[in-house]
C-alpha cells in the first residue's frame, strides 16, 4: 500500500519534471513587466543599447557600463553569482555566460528558470546573439541597427590598402592579458579576429586555444613589432626581453581599456578603432 503511494508520487514527479522540461524549451518572449537578470557585462551593455534597460532587475558587480548599470541590484560578481539573489529577483530570463558560469546555469535549469546563453567566440557569434536577444526582447529593429552599426565600424581595412600593408609586411602583435603566468590570445578568440581585421597579425594566431598560457621564450622568439599590455604591470624591464622589436622601438601600449577589447559588446567599436590606430601608426 505504502510502496504504491511512493510509486505514484515518483511517477507524478517524473511527469511533472518532463512537463516543465518541455515547457522550458520554449523561448520566452518579452511582455510588460518582463524581468531580466544579466550575468554578462557585455550583455548588460547590449540590453542598454537596445533601450530596454528598465527590464534589468539584476546584474553582476562587473557590469560597470553604462554608468546607470552600476545602480542596478547586484547579484554577485561574474565568477560567483549568487543563486539566491538571482531567484529572489523572480526573473523571466537570466542571461548566462558560458563556459565560465556552467555551475549556475545547471542550477538555474533545475529551477526551470529561462536562460539565454551567451558564449561568443567570433564576431559573427556576437552579432547573432544580439539579433537573438533582440528577438526575445521584441527589439528586432534596434538589434538590427546595432549590428549594422557595429559591422560598419568593425570592418576589414580596404583591399588595396590591405595589399599595400601586406606588401610592407603586416605588424605582428603580442597581446598580454596577465603577467603571472603569461596569458595571451590564440586563434579562437574574437580579439584575434579584430586584430586581423585591423590589418595586423597575432603572433600566437597558430595556437588553437582562446586564452593560452605561453612561455617567455616563445614571445621573444616570435619577436612582435607591437606589444599591447592589458594589465597594470610594467613589461619593458623584463630579463631577456630587451631585444624584442616592440621594446626596442617603444611600441608597447599599456593604456588601452581592457573592457573595450575583451567585452563582446557594443564598445568593441571603440576597441577596434584603438587597435587600428596602433596598427596604422
Amino acid at each position: 500500500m505504502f510502496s504504491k503511494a511512493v510509486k505514484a508520487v515518483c511517477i507524478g514527479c517524473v511527469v511533472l519534471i518532463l512537463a516543465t522540461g518541455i515547457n522550458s524549451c520554449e523561448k520566452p518572449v518579452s511582455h510588460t513587466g518582463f524581468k531580466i537578470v544579466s550575468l554578462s557585462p557585455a550583455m548588460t551593455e547590449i540590453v542598454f543599447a537596445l533601450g530596454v534597460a528598465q527590464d534589468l532587475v539584476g546584474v553582476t558587480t562587473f557590469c560597470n557600463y553604462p554608468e546607470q548599470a552600476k545602480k542596478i541590484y547586484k547579484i554577485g560578481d561574474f565568477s560567483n553569482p549568487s543563486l539566491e539573489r538571482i531567484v529572489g529577483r523572480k526573473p523571466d530570463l537570466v542571461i548566462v555566460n558560458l563556459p565560465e558560469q556552467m555551475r549556475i546555469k545547471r542550477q538555474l535549469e533545475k529551477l526551470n528558470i529561462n536562460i539565454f546563453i551567451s558564449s561568443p567566440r567570433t564576431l559573427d557569434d556576437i552579432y547573432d546573439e544580439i539579433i537573438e536577444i533582440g528577438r526575445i526582447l521584441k527589439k528586432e529593429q534596434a538589434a538590427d541597427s546595432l549590428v549594422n552599426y557595429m559591422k560598419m565600424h568593425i570592418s576589414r581595412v580596404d583591399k588595396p590598402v590591405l595589399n599595400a600593408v601586406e606588401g610592407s609586411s603586416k605588424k605582428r602583435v603580442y597581446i598580454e592579458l596577465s603577467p603571472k603566468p603569461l596569458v595571451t590570445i590564440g586563434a579562437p578568440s574574437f580579439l584575434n579576429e579584430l586584430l586581423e581585421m585591423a590589418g595586423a597579425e597575432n603572433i600566437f594566431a597558430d595556437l588553437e586555444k582562446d586564452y593560452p598560457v605561453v612561455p617567455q621564450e616563445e614571445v621573444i622568439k616570435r619577436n612582435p613589432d607591437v606589444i599591447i599590455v592589458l594589465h597594470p604591470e610594467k613589461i619593458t624591464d623584463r630579463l631577456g626581453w630587451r631585444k624584442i622589436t616592440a621594446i626596442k622601438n617603444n611600441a608597447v601600449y599599456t593604456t588601452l581599456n581592457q573592457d573595450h577589447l575583451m567585452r563582446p559588446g557594443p564598445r568593441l567599436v571603440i576597441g577596434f578603432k584603438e587597435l587600428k590606430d596602433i596598427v596604422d601608426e
Partner: protein
Amino acid sequence: MNRYIPIFLVFLLAIFLSIIIGPAQLNTDILQLRISRVILGIFAGGVLAFCGGILQGLFGNPLVEPYTLGSASGAALGGSVGMLIFGTISPLFAFLGALGVGFFVFTIARIEGGLLRDRLILAGVVMSFLCSSLVMIIMVMGGRELYEILYLLMGYLGVVINSTNRLMIILMIVLSGILLLYLYQYYRELDIISQGMETAAGLGIDIQKLSIIIFLTTALLIGITVSIVGAIGFVGLIVPHISKLIFGPKHLKNLPASFLLGATFLLLADTIARVITVYELPVGVVTSLVGVPFFIYLYRRQ
C-alpha cells in the same frame, strides 16, 4: 664519497640540457633567461628535496614532506591572502601560512608525551586539501583568473624576472642557502633521532627544541620557495628516498645528495615541460607524472 661523482655529472647534464633545449635560438638574452630559470630550478628542487629529507628524518615517517605536512599548501594559502592585500605574493605571508597550517597539523597529531606519526600525515593531507580549496575561494573572490591559481598550486619556473622582483629573488635564494646550511649542522642529531626518539632523549638531545627549530626553518624555506615558484609537489617526497637508497641513512651524506638530486629532478622535469608543448605547462604536472610511476617502481623493487 665517490658516489657523488656520477650524481654530480647527472646534475651538470641536467643544467646543460636545460640551457640548450628550448624553442628559441640561443643568444645572450635567451641565455640569461634560461640561466635564471636553471637557478630557480636548482633552488626550488634543492630546497624542497632537502626539506623533505630532513622532515622524514625528524619524524621517522617516509611520507612526510612539505606537501603532505600541509605547509606547502599553507604557504600558497598565505601567499594568496597576501596577494589580495598587496597585489603580489609576499614571502612573509607564505611563511606565516606554512607556519600556521604546520602548527595546526601538529596540534591535531599531538598526544600527551609525543606525536602520533600516522595522524601527522593524515592531518597534513586533510589540511592540504582544505588550504587548496581556500586558495581557490580567496583567489576567485579577488577576481583572479583560474590559471593564476592553478600555476600557484602546481608551480612553474617560467616566472617573469624584472627590475622590481630581481633583487628580492636573489636575496631570497641567498637566505635559503644560509638556512639550508643552518639546518645541515644538525645531521648528527637527526641520525640519532632516526634510530628512535627514546635513544635520542637518552643521549641528551633536546628533541622538543630541535623539532621547533627544524619546523620553523623548513616553514620559512617552504614559504620562500612557494612565494617565488608556487607549490611544486612530489620533489620533496620521492627525492629523499632515492637519496637514501643510494647513500644510506646517514644525513651527513644523504641531505646534500637530496639537494643535488632534487635540483636535477626539477630541471629535467622542467625541460620536459618546456619541450612537450608550445604552452607553458606547470612543472608540478610533470613532477607528478614522472614521479608517481618512478616511485611505484622503486617501492616494488625494494
